C-alpha cells in the first residue's frame, strides 16, 4: 500500500489539479423548497446529491428534518414521538440520515431510513440527551450524548471522552472512522480535536486564539472548522503536515467558519463581508471565492449566505435569502430581513 508520504503527495497533486479546474468552475442553482412554512437550513449532501436539513419557522419553531432528492423533492421526516423539533445533519451514500429531534421533554439523536423511518439512537448510560451530526458509509454516527462526544455504531454508543475538560462534541466522521469535533481542555477552553482509533488529538488553535472547533473531516483526514480569540473567529484547515492554518475571509469580513470539505480538499463555509454574510469556496491553490460570483444566472433576489457541505462531485448545499429586497451586490437594507428572517436552501451544481 501507499506510505503516508505518498498519500499526501497524491492528495496534494489531486488537489492542485482540481483547483485549476475549480478556478474556472461555475454552478447552477436549485432552490430546494421547504416542507414547513418559513425558514430552512441544509446541512449535508451525499455522493448521490441527496440533501438533508431542517425546515420550519424562522427562529427554530415548528421545524422538521427533511430529505431532498432530485426525483421527489423535499420529504418531511417528522420527529421522534412527542417532539416539536427535528433537524437532519448528514446523509451517507446509502441514504441513511442522522440528526437531532426533540421528544416530549428530551433531545435525542435519530437515524432515519426510507424503509424504517425515524429511530431514536438513545443516550449514554446516566445521561438523557444526545445529538447526531455525521454518518459515514459504514453507518457509524458521530454526535454527542450528555456532555461527551460519542460514536453510535451497531446499537452501541462509545464515549470518546474529552481533552481533559468537562464536555465534547463529535461533529464529523469519515469512512476511516476518524472523528473531528470540539472538546474542552483542562483549562476550560474548547479545542478542535481529531479522534483516531481511541486517541483524541488536540488540534490547538490558530496563533493568538484560545478556542477552536472542528466541523468536518474528509476521507484523507483533512479537518476544517473555526478558531476564535484575539483574531476574531476565523475559518481554518488542518492536516498532519501543515497543522492548523487560517483560511482567509472574504473582503471586509471579520468572521468566517469552514463547515465542509470534500476528498479533493475543496472547503465550503461562511464569511462575513462588508455587505453581510456570504457563502464561500476555498481551495489551497485557488484561494477563497464568493460563491455568489460563480453561479451562472443567479437571480438578483438570491444571496447565498453560507455553504455547509460539498460532495466529491463538487455539488454544494448552501443557505441564503430569497427576497426582492436583497442583492448580492449591496448591503441589505435593514428592512429586508437578512438579519434573522426566513432563509432558503439551495443546491449548487457544477456545470
Amino acid at each position: 500500500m501507499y506510505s503516508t508520504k505518498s498519500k499526501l503527495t497524491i492528495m496534494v497533486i489531486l488537489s492542485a489539479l482540481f483547483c485549476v479546474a475549480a478556478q474556472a468552475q461555475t454552478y447552477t442553482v436549485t432552490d430546494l423548497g421547504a416542507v414547513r412554512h418559513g425558514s430552512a437550513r441544509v446541512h449535508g449532501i451525499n455522493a448521490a446529491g441527496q440533501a438533508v436539513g431542517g425546515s420550519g419557522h424562522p427562529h427554530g419553531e415548528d421545524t422538521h428534518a427533511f430529505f431532498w432528492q432530485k426525483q421527489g423533492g423535499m420529504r418531511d421526516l417528522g420527529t421522534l414521538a412527542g417532539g416539536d423539533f427535528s433537524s437532519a445533519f448528514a446523509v451517507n451514500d446509502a441514504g441513511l440520515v442522522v440528526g437531532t429531534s426533540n421528544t416530549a421533554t428530551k433531545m435525542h439523536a435519530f437515524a432515519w431510513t426510507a424503509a424504517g423511518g425515524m429511530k431514536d439512537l438513545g443516550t449514554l448510560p446516566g445521561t438523557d440527551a444526545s445529538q447526531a451530526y455525521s454518518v459515514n458509509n459504514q453507518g457509524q454516527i458521530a454526535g454527542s450524548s450528555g456532555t461527551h462526544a460519542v460514536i453510535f455504531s451497531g446499537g452501541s454508543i462509545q464515549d470518546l471522552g474529552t481533552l481533559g475538560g468537562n464536555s465534547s462534541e463529535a461533529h464529523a466522521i469519515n469512512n476511516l472512522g476518524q472523528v473531528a469535533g470540539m472538546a474542552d481542555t483542562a483549562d476550560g477552553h474548547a479545542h478542535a480535536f481529531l479522534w483516531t482509533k481511541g486517541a483524541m488529538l488536540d488540534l490547538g488553535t490558530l496563533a493568538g486564539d484560545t478556542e477552536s472547533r472542528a466541523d468536518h473531516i474528509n476521507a484523507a483526514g483533512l479537518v476544517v472548522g473555526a478558531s476564535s480569540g484575539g483574531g476574531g473567529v476565523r475559518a481554518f484547515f488542518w492536516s498532519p503536515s501543515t497543522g492548523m492554518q487560517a483560511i482567509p475571509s472574504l473582503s471586509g469580513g471579520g468572521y468566517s467558519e469552514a463547515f465542509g470539505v470534500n476528498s479533493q480538499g475543496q472547503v465550503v463555509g461562511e464569511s462575513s463581508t462588508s455587505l453581510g454574510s456570504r457563502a464561500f469556496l476555498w481551495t489551497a491553490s485557488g484561494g477563497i471565492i464568493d460563491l455568489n460570483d460563480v453561479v451562472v444566472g443567479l437571480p438578483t433576489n438570491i444571496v447565498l449566505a453560507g455553504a455547509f457541505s460539498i460532495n466529491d462531485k463538487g455539488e454544494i448545499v448552501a443557505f441564503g435569502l430569497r427576497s426582492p429586497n436583497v442583492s448580492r451586490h449591496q448591503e441589505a437594507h435593514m428592512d429586508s430581513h437578512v438579519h434573522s428572517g426566513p432563509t432558503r436552501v439551495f443546491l449548487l451544481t457544477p456545470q
Partner: protein
Amino acid sequence: MMRNRRAKIRTMMLVLLLQVSVAAIRCLAQANVQGQWTAVQTWPNRAIHATLLPDGRIFFVSYYTESLHPHIWNPANNTFSATNMPAYELFCAGHTTLPSGKLFIAGGHIADFVGQQHASIFTAGTNSFTQVPDMNRGRWYPTTTVLANGDVLVVSGDINSSSNTNPLPQVYSPATNSWRSLTNAQLVLPLYPLMYVAPNGKVFQAGPNRQTRYLSTAGTGVWSNVALKNFTSTRTYGPGVMYEAGKILVVGGGDPPTATAETIDLNAATPVWRSTGSMHFARRQHNAVVLPDGKVLIVGGSSSSGFDNSAAKVAASEMWDPATGQFTVMASIAKYRGYHSTALLLPDGRVLSAGGNGGGPNAQIYSPPYLFKGARPAISSAPAGAAYGQTVFIGTPNATAITKVSLIRLGSTTHTFDESARYMHLNFSQAAGGLNVTMPANGNLAPPGYYMLFILNGSGVPSVARIMHLGAVAVAGLRGNVPASSAQDEPANNAIAQVNKFPTSRPAERSQGARLAAERINISSSKLAVTDLSFLDLNTVPGQAGHCDGAEQSSQSATSVSSGGSKACTVQSPN
C-alpha cells in the same frame, strides 16, 4: 369703519379661541378614552434592546457595531449619555436586571445567526461592563430569567448558522460568579423563548411555539410538558406578559399573524390555555406592556404576512382588560414599531415605544387614559427595600382613596419580549397617613430585584411609582437608586474580565450607521450620574390641548417629560 373692523377682529379672535378650546376639549376627551402619544423624538440610535434601570433611566442598545455604543436616556431632562464601550457587540443578546439592579447581558452578535459566548454585567453607578465567565457555547437570541434565588437562567440562542439553537440551559450564580449546566434538560428551543418563573418555582416556557412546558432548574434540570396552546400554529414574534402572579397572556404573533390571544393560570391544579378576546387587528412584531392597573397595552406590529411587513403597519394601539378579556382600540402611534422595536413601562406610568428597523432611531411616549382621569395619588414615603412577606408602610396623603397597590418588575425588553417585567397586586390596609402594604410571600411570586410600586385610586389613576428593592433582605439606605457598588452580584473575581475569546467584528463592518448616528446628535460621553427620582413625584393632570401626532421632533427641542406627556401634545408649529 374702525369700530366694525375691531368688532370683526374681536369676533374672529373669539371664534379662534372657541375653536382652540373645542379642539382642546376634544383632545382631552379622546385622551381620557384612548390615551395620547407624544410627538416623535429623535434618538441617538435604534433602541432594539431597552432596560429600565433602578434609577429611572433607560439603558438601550442598537444593532451591529452601533451596539458597541449603548446609551442611557434620562427621562428627567430628556438627555442622552453614551456609556463606556462593551468588549463586544451586545446586539442580539438576552438581558435582565439582577437582584442588585445591575444589568445582566448574555450572548451577543458575531454575525447573523452566530452568537457570542460571553456574558457581562453593566453597572450603571460606575458606567462599566464586567465580563463574567463564558457560557458553554455561543448564544444569539437567548432568553434570560431571574430565578427565585436571584440566579439567572439562560436558554436558547444560536451557536452558528449551521447548528441548532444551544440546547443546554445554564444558570448563572451572581454569588459565585459561575455557571451551572442543566445537562439533563437539553432541548432545542425557539429563539428568544417566553420564559417566566411560576408560582411553583419552576420556569414556564409560554411560547412562542405551541407546546408549553415547565423547566425545573433544580440539580441538572428536567422539563415537563404543561399544555398546548389553542392557537394551532406558532405565535412567532408574538409577545407574552405575566399580568398577575402566575397568570400569563400571549397575544398575536404567527405568520400570517393572528389577532387571537389566550391566557393560562399557573396557579390552577391543571393549567390550561383559554382563549380570551381577540385584538381588533392581527399583529406580529408588536410589543405588550403591563400597566399599573393590570391592563396590557399592545403597541405596533404588522397585520400581514411576511417577516416584518411595514406596509401593513398597525398604527392603532390596543388595551386588554383582564377583567373583561376584551381589547379596546387606543390612540395611534406615528411610526411603524415592528421588528427590533421595544416598549417599556416608565415609573411615571407612561409607556416608551422606541426603535425598530422600520421605526428608526426615535421614540414616542404614550400616556394611558388613566393619566387623564383626575389628580394622581402620590406616594410621600416608602422604604428603599422590603423582604418577602414583610408589611411595609407606604406614606400617602391619599390613603383613603387608594383601592389598589401594584408591583411591577423593571422591564428589560427586546424582540417583542420583556424578559423581566411581571405584574402582581399587593394586599394592603389603610393606616394613618398611608397604607400598610404586604410584600409578595416569596421569590417564586416575585424574583428578587427592583420593582415599581404603584398606588391607584378608585378611578384607576396610578401614582408615580416608587422603585423599591424586593428580596430576602431589605436593602438599607436606598431610595430607588443603584448603589455605586453592590456586593450582591459583583463578580467574585474581576480577574475574570478575561481574554476576549470572541471579539467584536472588525470596526470596518457596518460602521457607517454608527458614525451617522453619532453625527446626528451630540452625545455626552461624560460619566453617568445616579439620578434622583424626585422628578417623578407628580400630582398633575396631563394633557391640556392640541394635536397629538406631531411632526418629528429633535431631542434638543423636545419638551420636558415631567408632565406626563402633556407638553409634547400641545399645539406646536411643524418643523
